[in-house]
């Protein structure tokens, strides 16, 4: 599957929401913990070898479960059939909790739910739709009922 790699690498060089050197262990049996520079940008978790410019990889933080593990660590489990689990070791409990919080809140779907919640509440409290001034109140992605399956495309 092709993807816009150059643009993603460029994205990985931008200021991040959160970045730190953490211990990281992959999901395969036999994978060991390695020190990686981990950077959270939008809903991607980029990870680099220490002092390298180009990321080794990018994890899309959607459809995943983030959990606290023992010893200042947390894990990200991706909810596909394989249920791949990535482990991250932090330097302190505080750092660990902060990372978990940041990753959960970075998900696009989480933010979408927030937006819909605020939109609904503001409308209830003020009688006005706050999205109208941006001209985006009709966009499908911001609708309250966006949990329903999409309509089939019109016949071409």
């Amino acid at each position, binding site marked *: 599957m092709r993807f816009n790699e150059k*643009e993603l690498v460029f994205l990985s060089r931008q200021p991040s929401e959160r970045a730190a050197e953490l211990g990281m262990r992959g999901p395969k049996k036999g994978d060991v913990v390695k020190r990686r520079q981990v950077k959270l940008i939008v809903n991607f978790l980029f990870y680099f070898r220490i002092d390298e410019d*180009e990321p080794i990889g990018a994890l899309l933080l959607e459809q995943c479960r983030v959990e606290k593990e023992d010893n200042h660590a947390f894990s990200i489990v991706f909810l596909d059939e394989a249920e791949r689990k990535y482990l991250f070791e932090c330097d302190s409990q505080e750092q660990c909790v902060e990372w978990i919080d940041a990753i959960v809140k970075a998900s696009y779907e989480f933010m979408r739910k927030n937006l819909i919640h*605020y939109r609904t509440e503001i409308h209830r409290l003020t009688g006005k739709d*706050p999205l109208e001034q941006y001209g985006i109140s009709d966009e499908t992605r911001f609708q309250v009922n966006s949990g329903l399956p999409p309509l089939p495309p019109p016949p*071409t």
Partner: protein
Amino acid sequence: MKIHEKIITHYLSCTSPVDKEGYLYKKRERNTTYLRRWFVLKGNLLFYQERPGDRNLLGVIVLEGCMVQACETDGQFCFSLVFTGPGLRTYRLAADDHFSQESWIGALFCASHIYLSVIVRDLERRYEEARRDKGLCDSIQSSAVASTPNNIMASWNTGQPFFVHGTSIVPRDGRSYSTSSIPPPSVPNRPISYSLHAPPIQFKTSNKRSPKLWPKRNAHVTPLNGPVPSFGEWPVVNFDPSEEFSKLHEYYGNEIKQLRADWLKKKREEVGYVAEDLIDLG
């Protein structure tokens, strides 16, 4: 760089809503031909495949850091995804008709995570305001839902045009679809471009103008009917003007203190001593 394809395709196929899908033409990178592809937009990801229902995805475009622009150069109903940055690509797409073109441009324009987080941040503030107005809030803390990243906005907006383009909000009229750094012409509420472009608090270092030289305007009053003043006319501070006056007082006060310190130092060098202040400034 590894993109962990299975995670991405799982996101596409899971139950969360698809934001838009349909046929578009995609121009090949080195060729002039347009190929018809089935596109699916979900979150900040634009997937494409040959036909709907195909199990084999041809590719995905991550929609962060690009401008969406209508362009008529290649013929009718064309538009581009212009990634702003050195050596980055422009994707050229075309729709079947004007309605589809407008609809896709609209959907792609507000698809990025950056855009979404700016909107959420603004709504969060307005929600708190609405609650306060109704006398519902006793604390400033937001309720169960998240607060969006703060530092990301300030740092991304100082410097690279990449993110200045990416984060300005322009209410869409019939023509301008590309995000740009022009503030909205007339907005009843406090313009969002204000909070987007204000850099972090910098005392004196970058702004040498004394506040007295700015046009006389009460910085705390949001014009209700007239046009929004351009960014350059707002004081360079990064907080909500409806917050404490003391912050503003301290900000301006520091500049005065610095000026006075400079003056005293200069006087010392000239005269060899410093006279006591005639007035006790405390």
